[in-house]
C-alpha cells in the first residue's frame, strides 16, 4: 500500500458520488472522504514504522515525466490536513440543499483528489498538473452553487480563475527551463541538485513567486480573494481558505525555496516585508468590513501573510512555525466560515450590521464561535498560538522589527475579531429567532475545536512528523 491508494480512493469516490444520484451523493462523498482519511492514517502509521510509501514510475517518456509521489513528513502532514478537513467540510454541508448535488459532491471529492496530489507530487510537471486540476472544480463550485448576483459572481470567479491560471503559467515556464537544465528531468531531486547562477535563480524565484503570491495570496496580488470568498458557497470558501491557500504556502517551502535558495536569501527582507505588509494590511482592512465572509477573508489574508513571512525566513523555526500555523489556520478558518454559514442558514444574511444578539438565543453556538475566534487570535493553549509564536520567534531572529510589526496581528487581530464577535453575537436579543446548533453542526464544530485545543497543548506529534523533512529542505537550501 502506498500513497497512490489515497488518490485512487478519492478519484473513485468522485465518480461514485457522481453516479450515486442526488439523494445519496452527500453520504457517499462523506464515506469516501472518511475512507481516504482512514487510509492516510494507516499510511502515516506505516511511514512512522519506516515503510516506504512513496511511488515512482515512468508516466510519459517524451518529455520525461514521472508519476512520482513522495510522501515525507511535510507532505503527509498536508495530506492529513486536506483529508481531515474534507469530511468536515462535506459533513458541514449536510444542512443545505444543493441542486444537482451529485455533481457538487463529486467536484468536492475531485478537488480533494487534486489537492492531495499537489501535496504529494514529486515531479514538477505532475505537480503542475495537479495544481491546475485543483482549480477546475472550485471554479464550477463557485460559479454554479455560489450566492449573490449571478453577473457579479461570474465576474469575481472568472477573475480568480484567470488570475491564478496566469500566475501558474510563470511557474510552468520555470519548470520547463529547469527541466532543460536538468537534462529533461522534472523530478524534484534532480531539480534540487541543480546549480543555477544567481541570475537564473532570481528569475526562477520570481516566476514561482507569481504563481504562489496569487494563490496564497500575498499583497498586492490578493484582490481576487475577498470577492470569491464572499460569492462562493461556504463549502467552496472552506475548501479555498482551508486547503487551497495552503497549496501555495506548501509549494513555497517545497519548491520555491530549495530550488532558488540564493535568490531567497538575497531578497529575504523584501519577501518577509511583503508577508508582514499583508499581515498589517489585511488586519486593517478587515476592521471595517460589512460582510462577515469578507471580514474572514481579510483575516485570512493577514494570517497567511504571517505564514509566508515565516517561510521566507529560511530558518527551521520559520518553516516549522509556518507549517504548524498552516494546519492550525486550516482548521480555524473552516470553523469560522462554518459559523458564518450557520448564521446565514438562520438569518439569510451575512451583513454584520443586521446581526447581533444571538448569544442569548444560542449559547452553545456562541461558545463554539467564541472559541474559534479566540483560536484565530492565537490565544495560548490553541494550536494557532503554537504556530504564531514559532513564526514570530523566527522573525525576531531575523530582525526584531519584523517580530514587532508581525506581532501587531495579535493586537489588530483581536480588535477586528472581537469587534465582529461583539456585533454579530452580543447585544440586545435579536428579534429574529435563532435556533441553537443542531447535532450535525455541533459535531463539526466539536471536532474542529478538539483538534485545535489538543494540538495547542501537545503539538509534538506534528512537530516530530514535519521536522525531518523540513531539515532536509533546509539542507538543500543551505547546500552552498
Amino acid at each position, binding site marked *: 500500500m502506498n500513497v497512490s491508494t489515497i488518490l485512487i480512493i478519492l478519484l473513485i469516490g468522485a465518480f461514485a458520488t457522481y453516479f450515486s444520484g442526488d439523494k445519496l451523493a452527500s453520504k457517499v462523498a462523506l464515506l469516501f472522504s472518511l475512507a481516504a482519511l482512514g487510509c492516510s492514517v494507516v499510511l502515516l502509521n506505516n511511514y512512522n514504522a519506516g515503510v516506504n510509501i512513496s511511488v515512482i514510475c515512468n508516466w510519459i517518456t517524451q518529455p520525461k515525466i514521472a508519476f512520482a509521489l513522495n510522501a515525507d513528513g511535510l507532505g503527509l502532514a498536508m495530506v492529513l490536513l486536506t483529508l481531515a478537513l474534507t469530511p468536515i467540510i462535506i459533513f458541514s454541508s449536510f444542512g443545505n440543499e444543493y441542486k444537482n448535488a451529485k455533481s457538487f459532491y463529486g467536484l468536492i471529492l475531485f478537488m480533494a483528489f487534486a489537492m492531495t496530489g499537489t501535496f504529494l507530487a514529486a515531479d514538477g510537471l505532475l505537480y503542475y498538473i495537479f495544481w491546475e486540476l485543483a482549480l477546475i472544480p472550485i471554479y464550477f463550485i463557485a460559479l454554479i452553487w455560489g450566492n449573490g448576483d449571478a453577473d457579479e459572481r461570474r465576474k469575481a470567479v472568472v*477573475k480568480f480563475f*484567470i*488570475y491564478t491560471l496566469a500566475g501558474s503559467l510563470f511557474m510552468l515556464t520555470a519548470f520547463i527551463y529547469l527541466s532543460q537544465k536538468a537534462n529533461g528531468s522534472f523530478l524534484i531531486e534532480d531539480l534540487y541538485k541543480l546549480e543555477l547562477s544567481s541570475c537564473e535563480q532570481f528569475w526562477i524565484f520570481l516566476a514561482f513567486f507569481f504563481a504562489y503570491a496569487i494563490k496564497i495570496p500575498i499583497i*498586492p496580488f*490578493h*484582490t*481576487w480573494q*475577498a*470577492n470569491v470568498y464572499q460569492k462562493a458557497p461556504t463549502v467552496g470558501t472552506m475548501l479555498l481558505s482551508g486547503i487551497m491557500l495552503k497549496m501555495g504556502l506548501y509549494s513555497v517551502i517545497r519548491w520555491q525555496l530549495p530550488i532558488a535558495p540564493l535568490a531567497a536569501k538575497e531578497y529575504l527582507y523584501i519577501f518577509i516585508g511583503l508577508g508582514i505588509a499583508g499581515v498589517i*494590511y489585511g488586519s*486593517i*482592512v*478587515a*476592521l*471595517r*468590513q460589512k460582510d462577515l465572509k469578507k471580514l474572514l477573508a481579510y483575516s485570512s489574508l493577514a494570517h497567511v501573510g504571517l505564514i509566508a513571512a515565516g517561510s521566507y525566513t529560511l*530558518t*527551521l*523555526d520559520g518553516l*516549522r512555525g509556518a507549517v504548524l500555523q498552516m494546519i492550525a489556520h486550516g482548521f480555524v478558518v473552516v470553523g469560522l466560515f462554518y459559523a458564518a454559514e450557520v448564521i446565514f442558514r438562520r438569518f439569510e444574511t451575512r451583513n454584520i450590521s443586521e446581526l447581533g*444578539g444571538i*448569544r*442569548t438565543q444560542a*449559547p452553545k453556538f456562541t*461558545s463554539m464561535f467564541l472559541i474559534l475566534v*479566540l483560536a484565530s487570535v492565537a*490565544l*495560548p*493553549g490553541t494550536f494557532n498560538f*503554537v504556530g504564531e*509564536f*514559532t513564526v*514570530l*520567534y*523566527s522573525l*525576531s*531572529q531575523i530582525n*526584531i522589527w519584523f*517580530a*514587532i510589526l508581525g*506581532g*501587531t496581528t*495579535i*493586537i*489588530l487581530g*483581536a*480588535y477586528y475579531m*472581537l*469587534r465582529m464577535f*461583539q456585533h454579530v453575537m*452580543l*447585544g*440586545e*436579543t435579536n428579534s429574529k429567532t435563532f435556533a441553537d446548533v443542531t447535532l450535525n453542526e455541533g459535531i463539526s464544530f466539536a471536532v474542529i475545536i478538539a483538534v485545535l485545543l489538543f494540538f495547542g*497543548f*501537545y*503539538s*509534538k506529534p506534528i*512537530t516530530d512528523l514535519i*521536522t525531518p523533512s523540513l531539515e532536509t529542505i533546509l539542507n538543500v537550501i543551505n547546500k552552498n
Partner: protein
Amino acid sequence: MEMDTNLALLLVLTPFLGFLINVFFGKSLGKTVSGTIGTLAVAISFIVTLLLFNQITTTGKAIEVTLFDWIQISNLKINLGFLLDQLSVLWLLFVTGIGSLIHLYSISYMHDDENLHKFFSYLNLFVFFMITLVIGSNLLVLFIGWEGVGLCSYLLIGFWHKNQDYNDAAKKAFIMNRIGDLGLLIGMFIIGSMFSTLDYATLKTAIAGASNLNLPLLSLAALCLFIGACGKSAQIPLYTWLPDAMAGPTPVSALIHAATMVTAGIFMVTRLNFVFDLAPDVQTVIAVIGAITSLVAATIGLVQNDIKKVLAYSTVSQLGLMFLALGFGAYEVAVFHVITHAFFKACLFLGSGSVIHGLHGEQDMRKMGGLRKAMPITFWTMLISSLAISGVPFFSGFFSKDEILLTAFHHSIPLYVVGSVASIMTAFYMFRLMFLTFFKEFRGTEEQKHHLHESGALITFPLMILAILATFGGLISLPGNSWLNEYLAPLFTKVAGEEQHLGTTEYTLMGVAVLGGLLGILIAYIKYFKQNNVPESDENITGLTKVLYNKYYVDEIYDAIFVRSVNGLSVFFRDYIETGLSTLVFGLGKITDELAFQGKKIQTGSIGLYLFVFVLGLCAIVSYIFLAQ
C-alpha cells in the same frame, strides 16, 4: 516527586474541573449547587496551596514539575511545567484564598442572575488561568495564564452582554492587554534568543554565569517585558481599560481587577528580578512610570462619583506605588504591598458590591449616604479597609505603603514626594467615599430607602474575614523584623539589607506619612461631613474638576489618535486601495480586451490580403532560415 506532581495537578485542575462541570451541567444543577461546586473547586485549590506552603516553609526547596514538551523551537525547548517556589506559593495563597472568599460572596451576590452557572464557570476558569500564570515554570506557561486571565477578564467584564457599552469595555480591556502582551512576547523573543531558554531557573543560572552580556539588548528585553506588565497591571499608558472594566459584576472587579489579575505584572517583574536588576535604566523608567501613574490615577480618583470608579482609580494608583517599589529593586516591598492591597482592596470592592446590592444596582455616590445604620457590617469592614489603604498606623496598609515611601526616599526624593502626594490623595478620596456613602442622610429614592438592608451572611462573612486580614496583614513584614523578607530571600540576588536598620530618618518619614494620611482624612471630613458637600451633577462640573472628572480626556485622546486613525485607515484601504488594486487587475483584462478589439480590425476578411501577408511572412521565414546564417 510523584506526590508533588499530583499535588500540582490537583491544584491546577480542580478549578478547571469546576469550570467544565459548570459549563456542561451548570444549568441543570441549579444555582446553589453550581455556585457551591465553583466555590469548592477553588477552596480545594486553597487547601492544596496550604499543603504546599507548609512543605515549602519546612524544606525551603522549590518544587519543580515537568509535564511534557509543549513547543519546540530550534534552540529553545519549552516544557509545560510548573515551578512552586516561595514566590508562587505566596501568590497562590492569596489568589486561591481571596478567590474562595469571593466565590462564596458571589453565590449570594449573583443569585438573581439567570446565568449564574456561567458566571461561576468563568470565575473558575479565571482561577485556573491565574494559577497557571503563577506556577508556570517558564515564561511561556506564564503567558498561557497571562492571556487566559485576559480572556476571563474579557468574558466577565462583558458578562451582561446585552449591553454593548459593557461589551466595548470588555473588548477594550482585551485589546489594551494585548498591546502589553505583544511587548511581553517580544521580550520573550529577545531573552529566548540570548539565553536559549525561557525557563526561570535555567535563565537565572545562565544570567549569573554569563561573562559578557549584551546589556543594551537585555535592557530592551526588560523594557518590553515591562510594557507587558503595564498592560496587565494598568500602568500609564495602558491603564485606561481598568476603570472601564468596572462594567463587570462587582465580585469580578474585586477578584480580577483589584486583588489578583492586575498584580500579574508585579509578579512577572518580581519573578524576573534578576533580569531587571541588570537593567538599571529600565528600573528608573519603571519607577517613574509607577510614580506618575499613582499620582495621575489618584488625581482622577479625587472627583469620581461612581463608587466603583473611585476604587478602580485607587487600584491603578496603588499599583503605581507597587511599580515605584519595583523600580527601586525593592521587590519584597512591592510583594508586601500586593498582599496587603489584595486584602483591603478586595474588601473595599466587596463592600461596595454589598452597597450596590443593597441599592439594587445604584453606583452613583451622589445618590447614596447614611448607609451606616442600615448596613453596619459593610460599613465597619469598609472603614477598616479605608483606614488600611490610607496608611493609618497599625493597619496593614500602613506598613507596606510606608516601606514603599521609605524606599523611594532612599533613592529619589522627587519620586518620594510624588508618592507621598498620591498617598495623601488616596486618604482623601477614600474617606470622601466613606462619608458620601455611609454618613449623613440617604439621598436616593424613597423606594430604595424602603428596601435598604444589610446583605446576607454569605456576603458579610467574606467581608469580615478580609477586614481582619486588612487589619493584621501587616504583621507579616514588620519593619526591622520581616518574616516576608526572609521567606522571599532565596529569590533575590541582591540582599535587601538597607531597610533593616531603623533610624531617625525612618521614624520621621513614618511620622510624615501618617500625618499626610490623617491630613487627607481631615480634608475629606471637613468637606463632606462638616460642610456636607455633595458632588455636583455632571452638567455643573467645571474647570479643573471637569478635566479630572473626564480623566484628563485620555480616552478621547486615544480614541482620536489610535482608534480613529486605524478605523479611518481601514475605510481608506477598503474604499480606495482595495478598489484601486482591483481595478488594476481588471485593468489588465481590459487592456487585453482593448488590444483584441484593435487587433480585430486587422482581420479585414479579405483573403487576398491574408494571402499577401502570408507570402511575405513565408518569404521572411524562409530567408531567415536559409539565408540568414
